[in-house]
């Protein structure tokens, strides 16, 4: 039996417009993708390729100009779809005046968990990300790594079926990076669907089952990591790399 589609994008376009509704940037130009339940999918691409816009459309924060986005067969703006969603943004964006425990309780409450469930899950998640000893400390005093781990715990508090990770290892030291990768693999093994973006191709190679490379708002390649036949980095550079754009050596010489 074929696995259920968790994310489905069909010919999605997004054109940003200025105040006078004149088109300024066409960030996504006819992107289609389908992610099945239990997959770990990597959305890769250089800066400005349309990854973040795509993620924001999947999250329901942006409305596509054309095409359709479905989450669990529903509109991404529906409360039912968002009930099954966990999101870790590129930067942590935590409320500095809340403690770590309060942060998890806040997002747990928003996710519709009962107070008792939120409390027990907060304890569990703080332990999982190694912050159990600083649960009562204000987040404003956390290091970048600690904030990142707390943000990851926040994304998991609502028991999501789909986890969207935007640069999950950004700002983490090598040990924490390894821990996060292990955690994502464990979550995927437990049946969670994961969509991640990353600039660190080695991370994507370690975690993802399947990747899509986007450039200038278009999908330029898609495939299973195990079937690439080469390293992800070589594959990526072959698809989007353009050494002529980088004139650093010439610049340094001059």
């Amino acid at each position, binding site marked *: 039996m074929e696995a259920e589609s968790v994310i489905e994008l069909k010919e999605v376009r997004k054109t940003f417009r200025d105040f006078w509704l004149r088109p300024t940037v066409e960030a996504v130009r006819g992107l289609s993708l389908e992610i099945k339940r239990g997959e770990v999918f990597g959305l890769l691409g250089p800066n400005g390729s349309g990854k973040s816009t795509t993620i924001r459309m999947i*999250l329901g924060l942006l409305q596509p100009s054309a095409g359709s986005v479905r989450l669990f067969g529903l509109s991404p703006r529906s409360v*039912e779809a968002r009930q099954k969603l966990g999101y870790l943004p590129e930067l942590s964006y935590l*409320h500095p*005046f809340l403690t770590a425990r309060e942060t998890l309780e806040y997002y747990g*409450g*928003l*996710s519709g968990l*009962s107070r008792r469930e939120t409390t027990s899950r907060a304890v569990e998640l703080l332990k999982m990300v190694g912050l159990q000893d600083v649960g009562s400390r204000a987040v404003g005093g956390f290091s970048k790594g600690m904030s990142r781990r707390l943000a990851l715990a*926040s994304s998991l508090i609502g028991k999501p079926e789909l986890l969207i990770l935007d640069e999950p290892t950004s700002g983490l030291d090598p040990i924490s990076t390894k821990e996060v990768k292990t955690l994502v693999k464990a979550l995927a093994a437990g049946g969670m669907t994961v969509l991640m973006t990353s600039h660190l191709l080695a991370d994507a190679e370690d975690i993802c089952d399947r990747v899509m490379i986007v450039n200038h708002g278009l999908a330029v390649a898609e495939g299973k990591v195990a079937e690439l036949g080469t390293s992800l980095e070589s594959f990526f550079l072959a698809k989007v790399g353009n050494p002529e754009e980088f004139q650093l050596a010439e610049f340094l010489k001059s």
Partner: protein
Amino acid sequence: MRALLEVVLLELKALSRSRTAILLLVASVLWMLVLPRLIVGDGTFAGARELYVRYSLGGVFALTLISLLASACGSVARERTEKRLMLTLVRPVRHTLVALGKIAAHVFLGAIVLGVSSVVLALKDDVSRPCSHVLSPLMPSPAEEAERMYEEYMKSPRTPEAIRKAKKAEVIKLLEQRAIDRYDTIATNETAVWTFSSGGERVRMRFTNQFEMRQEIRGVFASGENQLSVSNQTQSVAVFDFRSNGELKFTNRGKSSLMLRPRRDLNILSRADSFGWNLLRAYLQLVAVLSMVLSFGVLLSCGLGRPVALFTAFAMLLVAEMGPSVVEQYPSSMDMSRADRVGLAITKTAAAVTRPVSALSPLEALSKDECIEFTPLVLTMALDLVLLPILLSLLSSLVLVRKVEGRG
């Protein structure tokens, strides 16, 4: 409901941990305690009391309104620019609840500050002191009177051509104001008669003459069998057993004619409940007004950056405060330049929109021991505390969706 509670709690934590709440509370209590030492009254206990009641709670209300409006204007804008809002919006929570939660938290804090100040006021004053219903004489409404006057004007051959050519609505508006300010003149030994819907124990009147100068007032009030002679000493409030036979008569026994505006200067005061209950009603009305203003603040915060939202909110407050007096001073756009007419039209529109804020004056009624009536209070609360915050939250959610859609 749980999500709404979480948003409220988050905002309250932000307000308390940024020390806004505690500073506001301390400043309010200090104002309530220090104000009696600053008041220079008219030398009477009643005068000093009236000033204290009006300016103590009035000062706290102004302070609370300004501080919480500033905070409300930044509440969503700050989270949006710092991208924290995105993490809330991707959760299974309706955008309307986010806006409603922000409003509720600010109103809750405002209600606490005003509540504590009201308790201080109640402790310093006599809560059992009676307050009164205020009745005005039964007369045709100013609009009806204006219509009648207009018809008479148009029939009269002496009416100037400019008025004949002017728009009817503009002339009617002028005449309405004239009806409100119309003086009844009572010549010596003449008797004026006014009708009221029910009776009371006291008559409040303010006579004047055409030069607005003090003059000798001597006369007799009569209602059925009851009579009361009044003089200068009793001209402010006369204690008088006025039964509900529908008529109050006043006979001028002085040497000169007396004038008064019956719609403004003549009332029957009948016993209502106590100052304590009136204080509670004034408190509820202030909270309702606060709620409406803060809802606007949150709406502005959803669509604008914090500085722009702040500027807009305070500009609106200023117009709300000044608009009615401008409109009263220039009721008609006749004989005005085009630019002045445009300016007046803008001010009138702004005054009409913001009238719910500017028209409410529970503090004036409270300080004069006039009962804040139940029906207008319930209407104010239904509109300002429930309906408008919900409507503005819905509007805020629409604005929020458009704003999040932006390039950022």
